[in-house]
């Protein structure tokens, strides 16, 4: 029996069920019938696990990949400023971007806008 361990990005992520289904479908289509999926929360998922290839895929899709080292525990933005965080626009590459909201279309992303090409985009937060 093949046991696949899946770690959720966020505890309430509704995509978890879809991800599990994708994994199972892919494995079955490759002839692996005897399998079981297990959810595990420890070690906690982190964006540090994203491969370079994964980051590039995110960027190509229009989601700015996480700027590592920017998730400081206990940080309060106004008090210990994270102004230094520069997120490049995934469309035009400009560094002239600004945060619109800490939470974007899903909990794992923040909403940003590019001041050069004026397009809104999602930023995958460091986690």
């Amino acid at each position, binding site marked *: 029996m093949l046991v696949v361990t899946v770690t*959720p990005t*966020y*505890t*309430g*992520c*509704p995509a978890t069920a879809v991800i599990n289904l994708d994994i199972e479908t892919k494995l079955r289509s490759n002839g692996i019938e005897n399998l079981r999926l297990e959810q595990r*929360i*420890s070690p*906690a*998922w982190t964006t540090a696990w994203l491969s370079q290839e994964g980051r590039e895929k995110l960027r190509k899709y229009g989601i700015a990949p996480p700027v590592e080292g920017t*998730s400081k*525990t*206990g*940080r*309060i*933005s*106004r*008090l210990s400023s994270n102004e230094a965080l520069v997120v490049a626009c995934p469309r035009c590459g400009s560094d002239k971007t600004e945060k*619109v*909201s*800490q*939470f*974007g*279309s*899903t*909990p794992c992303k923040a*909403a940003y806008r590019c001041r050069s090409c004026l397009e809104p985009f999602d930023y995958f*937060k460091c*986690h």
Partner: protein
Amino acid sequence: MTEPGDKIANDVFFDWLLRRGDTALVLGHRVSEWCGHSPVLEEDIALANIALDLIGQARLWLSLAGEVEGKGRGENELAYLRDAWDFRNLLLAEQPNGDFGQTMMRQFLIDAYQSQLLKALATSADNRVAEIAVKAGKEVDYHLDRSADLVIRLGDGTSESRQRMQAALESLWPYSGEMFKGDAVDQAVVAAKIAPSPEGLRTEWLSTVDAVFTEATLSKPETDFAHTGGLTGRHTEHLGHILADMQFLQRAYPGATW
């Protein structure tokens, strides 16, 4: 992980886990009530995301509570098939949303506390508790970031927004004391090295909220009076209404799934 402490009775540990799970569940439900009603689209999305995180955390805590209880109840039975007196959430979590500012103030007071508590629980002698705390702590840090930011922006905003934030702080402050009042359940989890004492979390919490209130130009109320009872099942009138909404489907159509 810390070395194991004294042995703890299952029913006491269960009660403590319900406090964690019910606070996340009830607050998550409250925050979800904003869905489709927030002042601007970005805030609507952010609140829905935070509600999702909190309900996700509630699922982990309540699943573990059911496991510890050992009577075959899982997260669903605990969330949908208990009445108000069996809920162990903080009274602060069930307080009405009020205006947007009041919701942000409630969120900030709880986020600052949760952030401290989860950090301490990350080294719990119970590995299952530590795992949930590490996972949830990362999410709560982002919640705190945002709620602190909004308390500052609205407090140090227009005279109207400042007055509303000050009113929110004054009405919610007496509910914040419950977070730091330990009882026999807390003594047992402290002895078992599962959790820190609630009283010990207050100093650091105060330093966080003081710093934010100063920047927000808000005055912290002088009173130390604290409403209590939520953690032992004596709730304000608001919880019953939340449960009527949240549990309706399972009560009307027992066992319904889709």
